C-alpha cells in the first residue's frame, strides 16, 4: 500500500470579494500529496491553481475567505492560529514564487538573505548560519558559492536568483515545497536547469513538491501525479503518464489538442472553442459544458463528481463511454 499522504486537501473553497461580487476562485478542490511525491496542479490563468497553492500556506490577501480543510500532520491549516501557521510556514511547507527578480531583497547580500532564513528556523549562531547558507547555495547549484555570498542580487542572473530563492525556501528543511510557476519568467534552457534542480532536490531530500504551472510539459518533466484544474475545480487527476497519455476529461483532451508542436505538424490545431467562464457566475452543472464537444442536455444539471476511470485516476465527466469510444476511433485513425 502507498504510505499515508503528507498533505490532504478536502473540499477547499477560496473566494475573493471584489467590486463585481464574490469570485469563487477555488470551488471544492480535494487532493492528496504523498511523502516524497511531486504533484502538479495545471490549468490556464484564472483556473484557481495559484489560489489553491496560496490557500495551503495561508498567503491570501485580506479580502479572501476559505472553507474546507487542508490537513498537514493531522492539523487543519485553515483553522490554525496565525502563530501556528507561522511555525508551519518555511519549516514544514515552503514556497517559491514566479518572479525571481522581485523575490529577493535588492539591498541585502545573498549570503545574508539565506543565513537570515536559516536563523529564522534554527537557533544557530551567525557563523553556523553562514556555513549553512554556503551549504544551501552549493546544494542548489550556485557555482563557487563561497565567492558569491557577499554579492548583491543584481549581480545574479534570473536563473541564479531563482536558485537562491529555492535555497532560502530550503533553509527551514521543509517537508513540502510549493512552487508557483517557478520557471515561467525564465528562458527555456534556464527553465530546464531549474526543473532539473527540483527533480534532484526532491529525490535527494525526500521532499514533497507541489508544482503549479500552466505548462503541461513542465509538470510532466517534474511530477509523478497531476491534477488538471478548470474554473476553480479539479476536472481530472491521476498519474502524469495516464492523464497526459490517456486523458479522460474533455478539457484535458482539448488542452492537449491545443498544444502546438505536440500532435505532429498538422496545419491547424484543434483548439477548445470559446473562453474560460467568469468565476463570478460560472455555468451550472459541469462548468466546461458550454465549450465541450461531448456535452449533452444532461451536463448543465449534472451534479459534478470525480468518477474513478482507472487506477488512481479520476475524471469529473460522466460521458466516459463516449470519450473511450472517441479515443479508440482516434487511435484507429492514427495507425
Amino acid at each position, binding site marked *: 500500500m502507498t504510505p499515508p499522504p503528507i498533505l490532504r486537501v478536502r473540499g477547499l473553497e477560496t473566494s*475573493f470579494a*471584489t*467590486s*463585481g461580487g464574490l*469570485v469563487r*476562485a477555488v470551488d471544492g478542490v480535494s487532493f492528496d500529496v504523498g511523502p516524497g511525491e511531486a504533484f502538479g496542479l495545471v490549468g490556464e*490563468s*484564472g483556473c*484557481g491553481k*495559484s*489560489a489553491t497553492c496560496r490557500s495551503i500556506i495561508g498567503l491570501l490577501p485580506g*479580502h479572501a475567505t476559505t472553507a474546507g480543510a487542508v490537513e498537514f500532520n493531522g492539523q487543519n491549516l485553515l483553522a490554525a492560529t496565525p502563530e501556528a501557521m507561522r511555525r508551519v510556514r518555511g519549516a514544514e511547507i515552503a514556497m517559491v514564487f514566479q518572479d525571481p527578480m522581485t523575490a529577493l531583497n535588492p539591498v541585502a547580500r545573498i549570503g545574508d538573505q539565506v543565513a537570515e532564513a536559516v536563523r529564522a528556523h534554527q537557533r544557530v549562531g551567525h557563523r553556523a548560519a553562514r556555513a549553512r547558507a554556503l551549504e544551501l547555495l552549493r546544494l542548489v547549484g550556485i557555482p563557487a558559492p563561497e565567492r558569491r555570498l557577499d554579492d548583491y542580487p543584481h549581480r545574479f542572473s534570473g536563473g541564479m536568483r531563482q536558485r537562491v530563492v529555492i535555497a532560502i525556501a530550503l533553509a527551514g528543511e521543509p517537508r513540502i515545497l510549493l512552487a508557483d510557476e517557478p520557471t515561467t519568467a525564465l528562458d527555456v534552457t534556464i527553465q530546464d536547469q531549474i526543473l532539473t534542480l527540483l527533480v534532484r532536490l526532491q529525490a535527494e531530500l525526500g521532499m514533497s513538491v507541489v508544482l503549479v504551472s500552466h505548462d503541461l510539459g513542465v509538470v510532466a518533466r517534474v511530477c509523478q501525479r497531476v491534477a488538471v484544474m478548470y474554473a476553480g475545480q479539479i476536472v481530472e487527476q491521476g498519474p502524469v503518464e495516464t492523464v497526459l497519455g490517456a486523458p479522460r476529461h474533455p478539457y484535458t483532451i482539448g488542452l492537449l489538442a491545443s498544444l502546438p508542436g505536440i500532435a505532429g505538424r498538422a496545419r491547424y490545431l484543434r483548439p477548445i472553442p470559446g*473562453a*474560460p*467562464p*467568469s*468565476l*463570478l457566475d460560472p455555468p451550472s452543472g459541469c462548468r466546461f459544458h458550454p465549450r465541450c464537444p461531448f456535452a449533452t442536455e444532461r451536463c448543465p444539471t449534472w451534479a459534478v463528481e470525480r468518477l474513478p476511470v482507472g487506477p488512481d485516476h479520476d475524471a469529473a465527466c460522466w460521458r466516459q463511454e463516449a470519450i473511450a469510444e472517441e479515443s479508440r476511433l482516434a487511435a484507429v485513425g492514427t495507425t
Partner: protein
Amino acid sequence: MATTSTHAAPTARPRAAWPAVPGLRLPPTLLVGGVLLAVVVALAVMAPLLTPYGPLDQDLLNAKKPPSWGHPFGTDNFGRDVLTRVLFGARVDLLIGLVPTAITFVVGVSLGAVAGYFGGRVDAVLMRLVDIAVAFPFFVLLIALVAMLGPGLRNMIVAISLVGWISYARIVRGEVLVARQAEYVLAARTLGFGDARIIAGHLLPNVITAAIVFSMADIVLNILLGTALSFLGLGPQAPTAEWGRMIQEGRQFIASGEWWMTTFPGLAIVVVAVAFSLIGDGLADLLRVEDRV
C-alpha cells in the same frame, strides 16, 4: 486570481459607486469644486449688477467702516466698498490664475512631449534649459524677471509664464519617455503614422492626465504667486482691485483693529484655492479610473 477573472469578462465592470448623475459619474470632489468655481466666476462676471458701488469709488467720509448692512465687508481707508473690490478683484485674480497656467500648460506640454518623443539633441538642449531654470530659487527668479520687465499685471503674467512651463515639460517628458516604449506607440510607428499624429493622437491623450491634475494645483499656485507679487508691489498697480494688493494695503490697519480690509480678500483667495484643489482631486480620481485598463 481576481484580476484574471475580470480580464475574461467581455464587458467593463461597473465602477466604484459614485452618486449617480445620469449619463456621467463624477467624483463628489469634482462636483463640489466645480460648483464653487462656477459661483466665483458668476460673481466676478456679474459684479457690476451685484453692488451699487464701483471698485474705485472713494467715499472718504465713510473710510475704515466695519461691516454693516450698507457695506457687508466694510470699507477701506479710502472709503471704497471692500465687497465690491473683492468681487471685481476676482476678475483680476482669476485672470492671474488662468492665463499663465494656460500658457505654461500648452508650452510645457508641447515641449515636454517633443523632447520625450524625439530624445537625443532636442531633449538634451531642452533639459539643460530646465536645469538652468531650476538652479535658481523659483521666487527669486520670478521677482528678478518682473523687476526687469517692470511691475504691472501684464508683465507679471509674462514672468510667471516664462518660468512656469518647466514643470509641465518635466512631467510630460517623463511620461512620454515611458509611454513611447508602449507597444501601441510602436504599432502606430510601424503603421507609418507621422510623428505629429503619434504625439498628438496617441501619446498625449495617454500621458496628459498628470499634467491636467497638476495644472489645477498650478492655478492656485499662480494666484498665490500673483497676490504675493502684488503684495510686494510688483503686480497690478494701485488703485486696481486685486486681492494681494488689497491685503498689502490693508495690512497697516490690522494693528488698529480694522481686520476686514485684509480678511475678506484673504478668504476670497482661500475659496478659490479650495475650489481648484477640489477640482484637481476630482479630476485625478476621474482620469485615473478612465485610465484603468
